């Protein structure tokens, strides 16, 4: 009973401390509002506003037809250029794609001689390069087909592919971006808040004072976990409703309550991780570095930025130990695919296990570092 009361009171103390720091409040508000909005709307649809240059050596109706097919918003207006210019432009990163239509293209096409069009892709523009190349091939083939059919009308193909996208029919990047941003902010804020709260106590000598009082390291840690976790949970819930649903107009299919349950479990793990960092780092500068070094891979490799299945197996397996991996899966399942408890329980279980391990390790470190 006493322990619970202590945890409660120490937690209130943490909240008071946080609310006393106006800069911190501004940053929290920013990170859960404007920051989410800008990173949700910042990711372009792919391909989107891709830069393309065309060397048209044919100047025929057929080649013109292909050029006209590159339209906004997927492409910026194609730039007509020559060979030398084309190479220089690619070098300077002015064009991601260049298309070279050979002389006599239309004549060869009509004669069925299967003329070759050269498509150059700037492979350094990673994501746009790969998805855009496919897209351009598609456009060229279909324009050529339409062009030819204008001369020799043809029946429908022997097999038709009907492609439907579910859960986000128009593939709006902002839907995914918004949820991913919320998840990133949750992770970032919770680790920073608890880690820094612990270092702060040490740097200001207050931890020494706590230790001469009838308070155990378990109580000290639990207080930070619940109070900082609560701050992040509330911020996330508000952001999900007001920013994601209202402002960004992202329809949420699944149960928000279930998602928040997952968030709570995730926070249990990340706040423990923050405490752990607080015991490893000897000073704020060390903590800052540790946090950056952890946040980066967490953000990039959890499956929120690029699909997990394309990562090397080793990385996939390592990342299974990170709570964010499970949280990203869980978030996508619940919020977009409307998955229920029956589907996401493995992720919830994983979060519980990871959280429990992190908590136990952090607690034993804390005991040691204080003892």
């Amino acid at each position, binding site marked *: 009973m006493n322990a619970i009361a202590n945890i409660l009171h120490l937690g209130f103390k943490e909240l008071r401390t946080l609310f006393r720091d106006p800069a911190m409040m501004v940053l929290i508000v920013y990170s859960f509002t404007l920051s989410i909005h800008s990173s949700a709307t910042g990711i372009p649809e792919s391909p989107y506003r*891709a830069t393309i240059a065309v060397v048209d050596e044919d100047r025929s109706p057929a080649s013109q037809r292909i050029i006209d097919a590159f339209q906004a918003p997927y492409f910026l207006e194609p730039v007509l250029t020559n060979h030398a210019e084309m190479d220089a432009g690619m070098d300077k990163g002015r064009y991601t794609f260049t298309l070279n239509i050979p002389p006599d293209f239309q004549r060869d096409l009509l004669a069925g001689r299967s003329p070759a069009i050269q498509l150059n892709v700037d492979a350094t*523009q990673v994501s746009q390069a790969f998805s855009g190349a496919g897209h351009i091939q598609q456009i060229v083939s279909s324009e050529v087909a339409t062009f030819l059919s204008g001369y020799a009308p043809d029946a429908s193909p022997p097999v038709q592919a009907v492609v439907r996208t579910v859960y986000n029919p128009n593939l709006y990047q902002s839907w995914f971006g918004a949820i991913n941003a919320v998840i990133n902010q949750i992770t970032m804020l919770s680790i920073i808040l608890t880690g820094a709260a612990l270092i702060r106590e040490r740097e200001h000598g207050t931890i020494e004072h706590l230790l001469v009082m009838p308070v155990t390291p378990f109580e000290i840690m639990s207080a930070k976990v619940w109070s900082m976790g609560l701050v992040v949970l509330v911020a996330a819930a508000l952001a999900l409703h007001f920013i994601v649903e209202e402002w960004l107009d992202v329809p949420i299919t699944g149960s928000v309550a279930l998602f928040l349950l997952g968030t709570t479990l995730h926070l249990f793990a990340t706040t423990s991780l923050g405490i752990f960092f607080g015991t490893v780092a000897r000073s704020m500068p060390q903590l800052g570095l540790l946090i950056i070094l952890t946040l980066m891979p967490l953000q990039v490799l959890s499956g929120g930025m690029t699909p997990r299945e394309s990562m090397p197996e080793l990385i996939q397996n390592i990342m299974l130990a990170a709570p964010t991996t499970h949280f990203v899966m869980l978030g996508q399942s619940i919020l977009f695919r409307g998955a229920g408890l029956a589907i996401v329980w493995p992720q919830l279980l994983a979060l519980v296990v990871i959280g429990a391990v992190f908590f136990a390790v952090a607690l034993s470190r804390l005991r040691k570092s204080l003892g």
Partner: protein
Amino acid sequence: MTGNVVIRLHSVGLQYASTVALADVSLEIPARQMVGLIGPDGVGKSSLLALIAGARRLQAGGVEVLGGDMANAEHRRLTGPRIAYMPQGLGKNLYATLTVRENLEFFARLFGQERAERERRIADLTRSTGLADFTERPAGKLSGGMKQKLGLCCALIHDPDLLILDEPTTGVDPLSRSQFWDLIARIRQQRPDMSVLVATAYMDEAQRFDWLVAMNDGQVLDTGTPRALLEKTRCSSLEEAFVALLPTEKRRGHRQLTIPPRPANDDIAIEAHGLTKRFGNFTAVDHVDFRIERGEIFGFLGSNGCGKSTTMKMLTGLLPFEEGEARLFGQAVDPNDIESRRRVGYMSQAFSLYSELSVGQNLDLHARLFHMDAADYRTRRQELLEQFDLQDVIDALPSRLPLGVRQRLSLAVAVLHRPEILILDEPTSGVDPVARDNFWTQLVKMSREDGVTIFISTHFMNEAMRCDRISLMHAGRVLASDTPQALQETRGADTLEQAFIAYLREASQAPDTAADSTPPQAPPAAAPAGADTPPPRFSRRRLLSYARREGMELRRDPIRATLALAGTLILLFIMGYGITMDVEDLSFAVLDRDQTTTSQHYILNLSGSRYFEEQPPLQSYADLNARLRSGDISLAVEIPPGFGRDLKRGASPQVAYWIDGAMPSRASTIQGYAQGIHNAYLQELARNTGVSDAGAPVDIALRYRYNPDVQSLPAMVPAVIPLLLMMIPAMLTALGVVREKELGSITNFYVTPVTRLEFLIGKQLPYVAMGMVNFVLLIVLSIVVFGVPVKGSLLVLTLGALLYVMCATGLGLLISSLFNSQIAAIFGTAIVTLVPAIQFSGMTHPVSAMEGVSAIIGYLYPTSHFLLISRGVFSKALGLLDLYPYFLALLVTIPILGALSILGLKKQER
């Protein structure tokens, strides 16, 4: 020197939020004198000194120091080197990780001293203050009193014309205190033009001053020589005169303290046998024994750093000890025994309550943690607020309160839960005489009426006289233990102070400290270079002084350097391998409702592709839905019944593809792949059936430039390097300034001639160097380990990296100068680096594809430019001629960030 007045104040007022610190103070302070500022805690002494030193911004009135207006920045710049200011607090302006010598060297360099002069002065000062043996010890490891001495040495390093000391001897032992004043007296002898302004809580010190200013409630009560003040108040001692000067209500309840005799008690409350503590090969406490009876007031006296605090901490269980035993009420001290903590009240030497909670909230929190009964606490709270005179500051934050008031709060907290043992580590240091007497009244009452055992350390001899017994400690050993009177008699001394000093001198086997006999050899004529020539507007030496200090701190912290270097390498490794834009191994499953060889043939096209990985087939629509929903598959293909038959009949059957759109970029990739595979199937079909002529109508030759094999590493390495070189240097720098703000050493920046530009660049340089080391390691790693060659000029890339690292550290500094707490700086840095660098700088999507806010950020953010340089040099072998616009952009960013940082940084405290 300007006439006989060194400082002139007219109608100076100062307010913190709603509290008035100074109200309409007008005062003229005579030059070439030793002037004392006395008064109770919290009457505005420190505020006044900070204003005079130029550390705090003037709000109202005028302050004229050394013949100029301190509101004028130019005058502050010129007079800065002539003023030395030592702020209150135990070594607040020192750098904990730097050694004593390095701290002194730092200050000496700030004042532009040459090596020889520096060496001489440091040797001189450390010898006269007894720090000579400790020059290689980090300042953070010094005892409270030694920190004070070091603080004074730092203030005296440059022969100031005006020396401002804010309670310099608080927490300093009597021997050191007398050495300290001797030192100042000698300096004044050699530099008779120097004026000294001191705030002090020791009335015996004030007695020796030339002129005194008595203050109360933000106002000056009286001024004059000590003798004049004594005559005016008709008092025999300054201590009494001080009380007499106070308005009547402040004197309330103050009377001479009498201590009733202690009833005999055989109960042993605290017992120590052979208690020993070693830090490395330094023995801090060496076989200490004592027994303290229940209800006894036991005093602990000793020179600074002799092990008093360490002994006390061991008794509370905060520090484990190597040898011996310690018992409280017969029970061995056990740090894990929660119950015994309830019986002990402890007050540490440095303030250790929450400075972000108000006075009342601090009390409340402690009451709750001790589970005090609510009703009981209500009365107890009121009682303590009155006893310790804290009613007026209930809602104030401790960080805004003067030292004396904070000490009173700490005491109130220590006794709150009515402990049976009180362990108090210099509880009255910095507390004014009246408050001290009140406090002792409480202690005596607790000891005599409630039987509370009190173990207290102090440097006040009149307090030591009040103890039942005292122990004298020196260099980790107890020299003598007895009643104060007996100790005095044994040494045949008139006062306890004399007895104490005699014991110490004997123990340290120095009949007379060397310092006392040899005066410093400072040639006063040649010394003060800064006094006649105005300090330069820009000084490379000052800049380098800060750079060197910052560099030292970085070197002292090998963990930070290792983290920065090893961390980036590991990150390059996992991110280089981990981020693949080439989406592969996508899981799909088929709902084959035809189950013919034709349908299986169609599926083979998909499952044979390297992009897709087939999962167990789907059984029904429900199964299809469930597996898509669970994320088990990201593509479901449905082949309709009669597919084979319809195909043969030319009925154009429809194959349905269901793609999981939760992750749009993956979905559109799947879309593309699926279309491609479907088309390939159609072409194959056409060839086989001979319906159409061979081949597609058009052949699209796809070439991936710069990375023909579309490998992930050559694509990712040039993109991850800019990312890492932004985050790590920015985070390293981000705490540079804000850390000094939070820990107090920023005062050095306020009161020394260093300019904002020198300060900022000085802070930045070491991290730029570190960033470049990082860069070199990253390049070596990518060439040697990853086999990703730099196709272009390494020199161009290095130049770009240098500019870029300057931008990154500049961004960190900007954040650091804007924020006031380290937490906010870390969070702020994470926000302004992670999202813009990863998402908006063109790592995955080119900046040209962005719109709105993200496009603006993308175009302005340095990572965008360096990313283009990095990719250009790494993959495209571009030179400076092709890349110059991006270099220009970085070049322009550096001064902009610098200017913003300068604007965000204030040269005075507000």
